[in-house]
């Protein structure tokens, strides 16, 4: 057991690893195929051009080696796309979103909603043909922990986005409401208990000012 001295039972905590992942839309696999197809088509075109326009053919075996590489890469890409589609998925939980992806490097990222800065739904050209969308989730400070989940139906993407936004709003309003009432109570207590307090506050303020002034002076004199 890693955590000791605990009121809550670690085993009772919701587990990320045991959730069932929602797969992306079936058509997303087609989107990926089309993307790869275009990519390898361009590469293949480049190869053909190089055959006619450059002197690759002068080195024996170089051209066919490149063609072999092209085929191997295309096959590897096809296999990885397939496997990647099976692995890629998300779990929408009450308080956070879990995203899993990657074949060679399998990653699982979880972003709690109360750390989300904003959400966006976007769409690529190929995705548009199948009416699929990408949900992007942004956190503060650079793009390291930003998430993007592609291959979502328009309806699903919007609903998740709204769900997350509602969650973030909910969190903050509850928080501030709670703290505000707290602060109000406190002010009342202070007012009723001590009528001489303004003077004390004034005095302490002056003291603070003096201190500030002194330190400022000392900093200046050092310079």
């Amino acid at each position, binding site marked *: 057991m*890693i*955590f*000791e*001295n*605990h009121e*809550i039972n*670690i085993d009772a*905590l*919701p*587990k*990320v*690893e045991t959730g069932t992942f929602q797969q992306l839309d079936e058509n997303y696999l087609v989107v990926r195929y089309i993307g790869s197809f275009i990519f390898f088509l361009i590469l293949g075109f480049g190869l053909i051009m190089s055959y006619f326009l450059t002197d690759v053919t002068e080195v024996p075996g170089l051209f066919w080696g490149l063609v072999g590489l092209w085929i191997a890469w295309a096959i590897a890409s096809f296999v990885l796309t397939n496997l990647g589609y099976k692995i890629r998925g998300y779990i929408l939980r009450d*308080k*956070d979103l879990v995203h899993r992806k*990657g074949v*060679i*490097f*399998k*990653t*699982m*990222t*979880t*972003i*709690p909603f*109360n*750390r989300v*800065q*904003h959400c966006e739904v976007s769409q690529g050209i190929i995705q548009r043909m199948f009416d699929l969308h990408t949900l992007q989730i*942004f*956190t*503060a*400070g*650079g*793009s*390291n*922990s*930003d*998430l993007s989940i592609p291959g979502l139906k328009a309806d699903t993407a919007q609903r998740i986005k709204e769900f997350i936004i509602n969650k973030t709003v909910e969190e903050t309003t509850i*928080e*501030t409401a709670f*703290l*505000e009432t*707290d*602060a109000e109570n*406190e002010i009342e207590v202070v007012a009723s208990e001590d009528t001489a307090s303004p003077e004390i506050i004034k005095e302490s303020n002056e003291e*603070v*000012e003096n*201190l*500030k002034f002194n*330190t400022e002076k000392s900093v200046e004199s*050092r310079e």
Partner: protein
Amino acid sequence: MQKEDAYNFSIPKRQSPIAIFLIVQKLIEQIIRQFWPILLVVILNNLDFQTKGSSSSEDPYMTRILFVLGGISAIGSIIAYFKFYYYITDDEFVIEKGLFQKKKINIPFDRIQTINFEQNLIHQAFNVVSLEVDSAGSNQKEISLQAIKREEAEAIRAFIMTEKAKSQSVVQKETQEVIIEEERPNILMRLNPFDLIKVGISQNHIRGLGIIMGFGFWIFQTVIDFDFIDENNPMDMVEHELGLGSLLSFWVYLILALIIFSILISLILTVFQHFDLRFFRTKAGFKVVSGLFTKREESANINKIQFIRWEDSILKRIFNIFQLGLFQASSAAVNIRQSINIPGCYADQINTVRATYFPEEANLNYSTHQISPLIIGRRVLYLGGIPALILLINAFFHQSVFLGIAALLWPIGIFFTSRIFHKNWKFHVSEEGILTENGIIGTQFTLLKWYKVQAVKTRQSIYQAKKQVADLYFYTAAGTIKIPYVPLAKAQEITNYVLYKVEVDGRSWM
């Protein structure tokens, strides 16, 4: 407080006219930095033409283009200056700028993370500062003023920070308490010249060495270009000049000179950067003032500090000093500027900062964990095996025994350092935060409170998945902390706990 009344921030104002100089200066610097090879060619060509007396129509053409470009940008900067206004409303800092496309940037006070000042020589001569307002958020809104009067800058900072504190005091009782407790900025540390030398000597000298090597290489190339040395075998010349016996001592001297020069360069850089460094504890957090020619003032608000990191090295350990870094939330991707670095800290100061960042730490129990020993094998394979293979191929082609021996020794060396690497990698987990500890020669400590985390990731390669280990990442608004090769069950337990902690903890994390 009276100071503030002297300025009416709500009226749109231009910067101090000195800003024009600074903008032009910056521009020239940028041009030189980006186009120095072209400039060098132009200048060298000029010299060449002068000496040889031949003229070319191409060269003055190029110079003219450069001058025209420079002129256009200079005029552009001046217009930009006159079209640049800043002012402060009740709750926002606003900038209006742009000639053709008017742009208005406003940053609400509660978005403002820090306000930093900087003074280079020109600034100092005219008693102005450049002011930089950093805001969090991925939309990269940042404000920077090139030059305004120092007093005004201070008044602006004081005004914004008070307003910010006022608006926050309603929401956050906790921070208010902290502020009241520590009203006075007290100096935690000051680098005297002796300390400065210690810091300089214990710097990482590789950078200095790199500068020298680059410079030396450049000179060597130039000299060869000018046919002063026989290109085919420069060493022959040295041998010829010094005699065969001196060749060895030539190398010894050369290496000694390299070492001394790199230390000297780090020393000079350190003095420039950290001269008269003062490290303050202020009411809101920490403040660092330093610099010889360019005075820099940086501050870190306690709430904005996401994690702290301190490290030593062999040399630093001799002097008992650490380098401390405060990593705070920032808008742009994390770079060195956003983390405040304080070199030459003693254990005392580290403890103060640690206690301020993580007051709960004193009452916590840490449980210590190690990373999986599988990392040793992987490091030997990747860091040892691949370079060894390349060396071996080279040794085969060049029939070199030396390279062959190197190919054998390299992985062995990697094996032993990897063992140390594994042994030294520890992470200490507690209910409220984590302390990591790693390094082969020196040790780097990183302290992170759980509620500062904004995303958790586990990453497994195929091998790691098979062996049930994972790399664990904690993302914060100030950067990422990675723990490699954590046993999977542990990684999952920590992930679930941290997520629980982040979701339950109501404190504002930045």
